[in-house]
């Protein structure tokens, strides 16, 4: 009787029903409150333009905190001096861009007028290439393993995802303690009869650990994306392959990889964008050293704008605009790939 009554819209009873009634009542009250002004606005601008009213709050938010700073940055990049307000800054046109792009050879940072910028560009490219390969490879392997029905799968998924939750600065500090002269790794090495290795003095080691720490910290996120892709592949395809006696490598090569390709592309582009922007982890871990071996573009921008005594916001702004242009292109690629995947 009760079920029949409920199914026909009879009043619900019990605590959850009461709570739902309160919530519904609250929502109704809100609707009653907002209904008259919304109707008034609709009468004023017409129903077709109403979506823009709902977009307005977000547009204002993004305008203030995203587009306005971008605009200010562009103004800074074409003005000089040390003033912070545009009215205090003389217009210098493309002077900062010309300075950044003034190079004998773009392959030789030392031949550039702003050599540190190009060292940053070179280091960022190196970091990006190694990080992309390592990140995609290890994320893929981990996702493939975690997709199998192994014991403690949930636990391992959590373990791999845990570093993603940590702040990049905390990650870098943990690894700095491990890798420094009197750190954990050197303690293990010396206990085993080996010699201490000064990881932050050798440029090769410094770059290796920068990539390693970054992969360690973020791999869980990309593993999760790939795992979702793997689980979306229909089981019957694998079953058909199994019935045909297809070997595991061929299954991976002919089934898994093609069907996972859209996810892999998204991961590739996301890793690429993140690598180009890298700063905090590497800065805390190596300080950009030894010399300038791990100094990335963003560190150059930070140093030019804030760490030098004369804070050259114009030059830093111009470098940011160039970096922004690269990131914009990469984002367009990501959008294109995402759309293609969706369609």
């Amino acid at each position, binding site marked *: 009787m009760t079920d029949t009554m409920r199914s026909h819209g009879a009043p619900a009873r019990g605590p959850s029903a009461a709570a739902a009634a309160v919530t519904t009542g609250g929502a109704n009250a809100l609707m009653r409150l907002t209904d008259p002004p919304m109707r008034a606005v609709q009468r004023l601008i017409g129903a077709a333009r109403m979506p823009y009213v709902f977009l307005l709050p977000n547009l204002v938010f993004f305008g203030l905190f995203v587009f306005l700073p971008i605009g200010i940055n562009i103004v800074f990049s074409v003005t*000089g*001096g*040390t*003033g*912070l*307000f545009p*009215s*205090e*800054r*003389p217009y*210098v046109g493309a002077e900062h861009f010309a300075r950044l792009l003034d190079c004998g050879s773009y392959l030789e940072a*030392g031949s550039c007028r702003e*050599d*540190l910028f190009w060292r940053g560009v070179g280091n960022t490219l190196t970091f990006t290439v190694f990080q992309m390969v390592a990140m995609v490879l290890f994320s893929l392997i981990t996702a493939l393993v975690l997709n199998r029905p192994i014991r403690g799968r949930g636990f391992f998924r959590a373990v791999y995802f845990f570093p993603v939750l940590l702040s990049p600065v905390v990650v870098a500090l943990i690894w700095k303690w491990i890798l420094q*002269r*009197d750190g954990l790794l050197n303690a293990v090495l010396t206990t085993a009869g080996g010699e201490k290795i*000064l990881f*932050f*003095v050798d*440029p090769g080691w410094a770059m290796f650990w920068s990539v390693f720490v970054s992969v360690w910290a973020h791999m869980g996120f990309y593993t999760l994306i790939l795992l979702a892709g793997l689980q979306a592949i229909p089981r019957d395809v694998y079953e058909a392959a199994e019935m045909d006696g297809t070997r595991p490598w061929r299954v991976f090569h002919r089934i898994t990889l093609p069907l996972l390709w859209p996810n892999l592309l998204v991961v590739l582009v996301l890793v690429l964008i993140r690598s180009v922007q890298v700063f905090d982890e590497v800065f805390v871990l*190596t*300080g*950009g*050293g*030894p*010399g*300038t*071996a*791990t*100094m990335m573009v963003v*560190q150059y921008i930070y*140093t030019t704008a*804030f*760490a*030098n*005594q*004369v*804070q*050259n916001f*114009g*030059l830093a702004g111009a470098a940011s605009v160039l970096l922004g242009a690269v990131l914009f292109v990469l984002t367009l690629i990501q959008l294109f790939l995402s759309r293609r995947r969706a369609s």
Partner: protein
Amino acid sequence: MKKAAWMAGCALALSILGAAGAQAQTTLRIMWYSDGNEGEVMNDLLRRFEAQNKDVKVVLDQVPFKAINETLPVQLASGQGPDLARITDMGGLAPYLMDVRAHVKDVAYWEQNYGPFLQWMRVPGNTTAIPGYMTQLTVTGPFVNKTLFEQAGVAMPGANATWDDWAKAAKAVADKVQAPFPVAFDRSGHRFFGLAVSQGAQMAEVGGELKPVDDGFKRAAKLVVDWHKSGVMSKELWGAVSGTAYRGANEEFKNAQVVFYESGSWQTAQFDKTIGDAFDWIAVPTPCGPANCSGMPGGAALVALKTSSHPAEVGRLLDFLASEEVANEFYARTLFVPGHIGLAKKGIAYKSASPQAAAALKVFGDAVGKLDPVAYRIQGDPSSRIVFNAAISRLGQVVVGETSLDDAYQRISADVAQQIAERRKKQ
């Protein structure tokens, strides 16, 4: 009756307002960094000031030194900032400092006792402003791990020893006792210039243009690079970070890993507290170069900022802190070399210092008298920090083999010229 009620009401309102007025407090904020215990001592003094000045509350915002160097200048450039700050880049921040002459009791007292250092805080051309006072005068100089010398059985170089003498001795000690850092310099342009002045660096202005790289500078730069090549200095300090980043070696010295540590008087208090009886350490006079045996003067000043909207209260607070009695207590409890001429002449009784800290302070006190005039001029130059940063950034690259010394000299000159040009740009 109605009229009486109205009057009573008004009287009550007035009395409440009056009471509120009497209770109204002006809050002053100080941005402050500490090397040792000076934050604690300053807090004690501020509470005493508040007890004597019920209308003023002072908040000491303790921040890392990096915030003073990097955050404060941006704040000030944007027209924001605290009422006062403890700063070291006096020349660079001079345009933002408030002249408190109109708000202090006795301008002559300030001139008489802080005069020589006030020039460091004034914008070029100004000879009268009083922006603040020196919370400490510092002088660069070396600390030596005496225990390591004794363990190695190596004789310590005597008075008037050269940099070369100390480098050889420290290397010999380090080799025998397996210390990883024979000689360590803080990765700081100011510390590098301690060496450079003794080698004859002038940082002179020629034809209206600053010439940071001269023969003295080159001699010092070559010494640093050669020491890194021969293992006298370790790349871990100057090579391990990039750009203008400061890297001290105090932790390594405290852990007995450094034989000879070029730093300065401000480390005395923390070494006294943290090293304790772990090993014997001493401060020794700055080694000599071909030009002189001078280090670099420096220090930290507590300055009033133009961003403050309470200049009278700021003046009153500075008068209190800079008074002879209070300053004396501050220097004595923090184990700082006084930046107060009168107290420097009378001498400070460092009652809380151990015998070795007291001895170190005596060495640094004596070193003040041996400072070369060029060192004072460089410290007071508003572009000094530009030169210091450029030097440290480029020499760091040479140390790890990224570039040559000659290329570094060109880059240093170009970096300095470019930054000065940017600073001069006006609308």
